[in-house]
């Protein structure tokens, strides 16, 4: 009797302890996951794998990838071919969905699946990319880029694409091509084909307008302010209300804008476009604020080197510098005297910095 009472006391006390420890464990695990992949990682619908989720995910992934697909017959119509490819993609999508629901942090599976499905099932590919952004936070940029690419090139849904590219550039410097994609998508939303040359001028203005309008060029710190980017893009007409007063901030967008405008200015003269003088001056002002501080071409603002007589981009006759002033010599000066004819360098000439010889012979 006595030992039974002891057993009952042990049972009840361990029951209470068990409930307490379980609640605390659940809370702590949710806190742990909230820090990296989010609580939804734990709350996701699970398959009855008895704790072998990861192994099951690996096996299904290999089976999906190594699945022998039926051969595509060559004598079928385009519609039949498309139907065939979609059917096969759907079959693979089922496999990949199972894989990532079993193991939501399986990065390679997301990569494979998105690339596999992007042509036939772009919506599903984007869904997978969005899921990857949730569970693989350190790879958000990579999957945002993929989703943006699918949305813009396959689905032609530029507003969604813009959102994904905003994710890419959010929170710090990005690869330059991502910035370019972002800008091109922005133009697409405005109904402008950025590759169409006769609209180039207008496109560039809108780029400049949007950037300025959103404060990107004035004291921008990161891309956090991109939230309301969709509004305010009013097209070329917006240039009239533009204020480029304080264009000086360092940002990732600066070199992109610089290159964009430089290419534009370099290929053709601004004056050839049917723009008002005011607008031409405004675009020039944007460029000037970013223009090189040394010697630069007056037309395309490309920085040129000592001894250059013509702009390598637009061919404009340049005012050369750093060359011997003696008629017929024209050597590029290396020091205070010409190394060809011995003529003294003109007043104010700063010789280029000497290159230090390596410590050991090369």
């Amino acid at each position, binding site marked *: 009797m006595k030992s039974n009472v002891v057993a009952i006391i042990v049972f009840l006390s361990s029951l209470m302890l068990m409930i307490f*420890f379980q609640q605390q464990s*659940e809370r702590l695990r949710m806190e742990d996951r909230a820090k990296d*992949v989010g609580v939804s990682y734990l709350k996701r619908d*699970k398959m009855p794998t008895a704790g*072998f989720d*990861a192994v099951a995910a690996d096996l299904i992934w*290999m089976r999906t990838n190594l699945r022998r697909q039926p051969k595509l017959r060559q004598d079928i119509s385009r519609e039949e071919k498309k139907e065939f490819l979609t059917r096969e993609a759907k079959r693979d999508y089922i496999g990949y969905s199972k894989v990532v629901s079993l193991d939501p*942090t399986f990065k390679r599976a997301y990569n494979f699946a998105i690339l596999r499905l992007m042509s036939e099932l772009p919506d599903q590919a984007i869904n997978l990319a969005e899921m990857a952004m949730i569970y693989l936070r350190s790879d958000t940029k990579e999957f945002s880029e993929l989703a943006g690419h699918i949305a813009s090139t396959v689905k032609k849904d530029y507003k969604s694409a813009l959102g994904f590219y905003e994710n890419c550039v959010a929170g710090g410097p990005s690869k330059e091509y991502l910035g370019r994609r972002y800008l091109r998508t922005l133009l697409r939303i405005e109904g402008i084909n950025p590759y169409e040359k006769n609209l180039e001028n207008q496109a560039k203005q809108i780029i400049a307008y949007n950037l300025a309008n959103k404060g990107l060029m004035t004291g921008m710190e990161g891309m956090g302010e991109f939230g309301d980017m969709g509004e305010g893009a009013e097209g070329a007409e917006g240039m009239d209300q533009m204020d480029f007063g304080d264009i000086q901030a360092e940002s990732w967008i600066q070199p992109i804008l610089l290159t964009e405008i430089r290419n534009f200015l370099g290929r053709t003269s601004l004056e050839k476009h049917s723009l008002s003088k005011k607008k031409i001056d405004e675009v020039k002002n944007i460029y000037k604020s970013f223009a090189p501080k040394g010697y630069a071409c007056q037309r395309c603002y490309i920085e040129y080197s000592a001894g250059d007589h013509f702009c390598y981009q637009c061919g404009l006759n340049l005012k050369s510098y750093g060359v011997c002033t003696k008629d017929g010599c024209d050597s590029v000066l290396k020091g205070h005297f010409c190394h060809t004819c011995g003529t003294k360098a003109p007043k104010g000439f700063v010789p280029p910095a000497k290159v230090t010889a390596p410590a050991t012979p090369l």
Partner: protein
Amino acid sequence: MLNDAMTIAGDAFRDANRRKGVVYFLLIIAIAQVAVFALYGEISLGIEDKLLKDVGLGMISLVGLLSALAMAFQIPRELREKTAMTLFAKPLGRESYLVGKLMGISFLAIRNMGIVALGVIFILNSNELTGDGFTSGFLQSFLLTVVGTIDLIAITLLISLYLTEGISVLLAIILTILGNLTFAISHSETGLSSVAGIFKYILPNFYLFDIKSEVAASLNTSVPYMLFASGYGIAYAIMLASLSLILFRKRDL
């Protein structure tokens, strides 16, 4: 009582160990792991590291599960063949018998899981394909798997007191599956969540011990979590053992 329990534990350990199937199975797993590892480069499509960790930790769990099922074979057989009665005829309490069985099969499971874990660690550290190799996360997962296996042994102890071998094994496997689902179901937005919310205090919450995917994905598991989850597992095992004892004492053999 402890000496008696240890004697029974030693006997249960030897009895389960005598079955060559377990040893052969471990050997096959070890050989298969090494053999398959050579093929990982071809079949894994660039995820050798993840695959090895997943499969290694999965194997440890599987060996733990199979070791726990030894309980489901031992107790019903001993009760059916009346060999347990000879023990009770001696001055051995039923509590010593149950605690001894629980300890013996737990030792067996830990030994078997340890062997597989050592094999996995060896492979993880012996090849450059396996990335960061053996990590603290692997050890954490191993420890929680051990605690989870002890819980499973305690469940099997309870059900094998009343059921036959086959049904005990089946029920233990079903409870393992359900125990892995209760956490997710109780937090899901389905209609089952309220039911699962109650059952998670009755069924073992094995999901608390399953951090295998997190380890493979290099997600961090905090030390307080390890302590509370281990505490939960131990408390659950003690609760089931004491419940088994209360019921077993009332059973007329």
